[in-house]
């Protein structure tokens, strides 16, 4: 006995005869697969993007209030009115030996649609941990380092408008000529709204708003220590010397008008709330995938039922039962295979487009990268379908041939 056979012509003929139905079934499988894969990809992309966003923000210190609000403000640059941390706390922090480096984060102006944020030089490179994409850190007032997505070249000049802070006092806004800046460096991409920000020395932001520069003389180098009455700031980003110091710092700056916390923890708890929603969403996607596959399976079984005569004829002219089994199975495999492959690409494309649109709106980068999980899901759908296809195939196998030949 030989196992060689070629059931493909039978499967192909069946696919041809019902081209419309077959295409519709393929489309259903593709949509079901795309849904499952797209939701998974989006979910993971969002989670990863959010986790990345907190990268570098070890410890935030601000005025007591909402940690969530301060996190969103400092990490996602969401404009919001937050209480200011007194300058005295900043002075205590810069003298603290557990601090490796720190940077105030001061908001105020805009350049076009780009927020202008005042920081200390150490922030630009995360204390030397992350090199700039090009150029150098600012070394004097009037110099700026731009986020990766800001459309300014090195050496170009910009003039910020009086934006947020004074928008109500001066509704038309006016340009701060004295605060014009020259771009000297560019940050690497971070996948956060910081990519769209223009970073100036915090001293400039203070001076523009008539708050002094925190230094004894105009010639003092940028950055800490600010010895002369530094103004209040919305947040200070603190890099501790080590893990133990991080917890000690958090403990130390939790009172006396300060609030220290780990923004990563805030994000984790935010995502925990979102986690239930994600599960509901994933569950719904899985359920609709299952329902669609069940519908595909039923229509396929229906298609086979009307072909009982064809199967009987094949048996009558000598086809072994395994030939029928293989032909039916092959046919379903083509429908499922094409559907699942198209669905994988469709889900990927859909998730990438959605992530692009969402990300542009929120100025957050959501990286959509299919992993083994998605390929596994597509393969699981395929495998489940192929296994399910054995049932109608076995049905074709079991029918006595003479039965189907009676008119």
């Amino acid at each position, binding site marked *: *006995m*030989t196992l*060689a*056979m*070629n*059931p493909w*012509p*039978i499967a*192909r*003929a*069946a*696919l*041809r*005869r019902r081209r419309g139905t077959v295409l519709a079934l393929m489309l259903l499988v593709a949509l079901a697969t795309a849904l499952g894969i797209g939701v998974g990809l989006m979910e993971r992309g969002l989670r990863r993007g959010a986790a990345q966003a907190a990268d570098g923000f070890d410890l935030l210190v601000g005025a007591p209030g909402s940690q969530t609000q301060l996190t969103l403000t400092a990490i996602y640059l969401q404009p919001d009115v937050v209480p200011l941390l007194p300058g005295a706390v900043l002075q205590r922090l810069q003298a603290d030996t557990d601090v490796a480096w720190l940077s105030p984060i001061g908001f105020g102006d805009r350049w076009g649609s780009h927020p202008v944020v005042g920081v200390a030089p150490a922030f630009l490179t995360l204390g030397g941990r992350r090199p700039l994409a090009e150029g150098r850190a600012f070394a004097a007032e009037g110099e700026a380092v731009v986020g990766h997505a800001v459309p300014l070249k090195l050496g170009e000049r910009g003039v910020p408008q009086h934006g947020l802070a004074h928008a109500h006092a001066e509704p038309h806004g006016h340009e701060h000529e004295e605060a014009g800046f020259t771009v000297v460096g560019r940050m690497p991409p971070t996948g956060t709204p910081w990519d769209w920000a223009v970073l100036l020395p915090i001293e400039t932001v203070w001076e523009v708003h008539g708050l002094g520069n925190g230094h004894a003389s105009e010639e003092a180098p940028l950055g800490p220590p600010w010895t002369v009455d530094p103004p209040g700031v919305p947040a200070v980003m603190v890099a501790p010397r080590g893990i133990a110091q991080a917890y000690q710092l958090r403990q130390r700056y939790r009172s006396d008008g300060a609030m220290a916390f780990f923004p990563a923890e805030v994000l984790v708890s935010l995502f925990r709330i979102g986690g239930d929603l994600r599960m509901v969403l994933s569950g719904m996607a899985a359920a609709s995938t299952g329902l669609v596959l069940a519908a595909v399976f039923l229509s396929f079984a229906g298609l086979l039922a009307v072909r009982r*005569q*064809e199967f009987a*004829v*094949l*048996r*009558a*002219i*000598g*086809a*072994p*039962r395994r*030939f029928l089994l293989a032909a039916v199975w092959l046919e379903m495999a083509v429908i499922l295979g094409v559907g699942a492959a198209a669905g994988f690409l469709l889900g990927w494309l859909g998730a990438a487009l959605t992530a692009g649109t969402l990300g542009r709106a929120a100025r957050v980068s959501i990286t959509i990268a299919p992993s083994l999980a998605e390929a596994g899901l597509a393969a699981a759908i395929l495998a489940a379908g192929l296994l399910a296809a054995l049932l109608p195939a076995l049905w074709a196998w079991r029918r*006595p*041939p*003479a039965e189907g*030949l*009676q*008119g």
Partner: protein
Amino acid sequence: MPGLPLACRDLRLGFALKGGGEHRLLDGASFDLPAGSALALTGPSGSGKTSLLHALAGLALPAGGSIRWGELNLPAQGEAARDTWRRGNLGLVFQDFFLIGGMTALENVLLPAWFDHARAPEALRDRAAALLARAGIQSPATRIEAMSRGERQRVALARALLRAPAVLIADEPTASLDAASGAAAAELLLQVAQESGATLLLATHDLALAARLPHRATLVEGRLEQTQ
């Protein structure tokens, strides 16, 4: 392939009726057919001609008795063995052709080769082309749906002949054709059966066609009457 002799002993055919009892189509018939000979089977509609042919082809099991093709008692074989026997020894022709839609004439003829070959051997491809030419099919690459009924029956005949079967069984092969197409199909069937030496069993209502075969039997009320 030279024909196989047929020997049936005490062959009983029937089916169970709803509500009990049994409807007997054939009540203990014994008959022989020499290898390479041809038998016309006649009888009124519903007399069980098709059931008898199905039993002789191993498609259905008789209620009792033996059907011996050569040395092999077909009803005693398992389902897979009967499939194999049909594939190797039998050519079947049906009243309604039963070709596979969506395939060309040539593909339909080659179909039996694909039951046990991943790719039809060259010899079978040549034979398929020759059979179609012999059957007067001009364009073997035409889909079967585009062919006339007469052409389709000749394609079905070519399919039955592909593996040069030792036994040919035809169930009313001309009944659904017009007179001219039916005559052409019948002529082809009788010619190739005679040339190949296959044993031919042919059920028909067409008494003129039946008269052309050397052996004739009539199935009536559960009895098989041989009419030489």
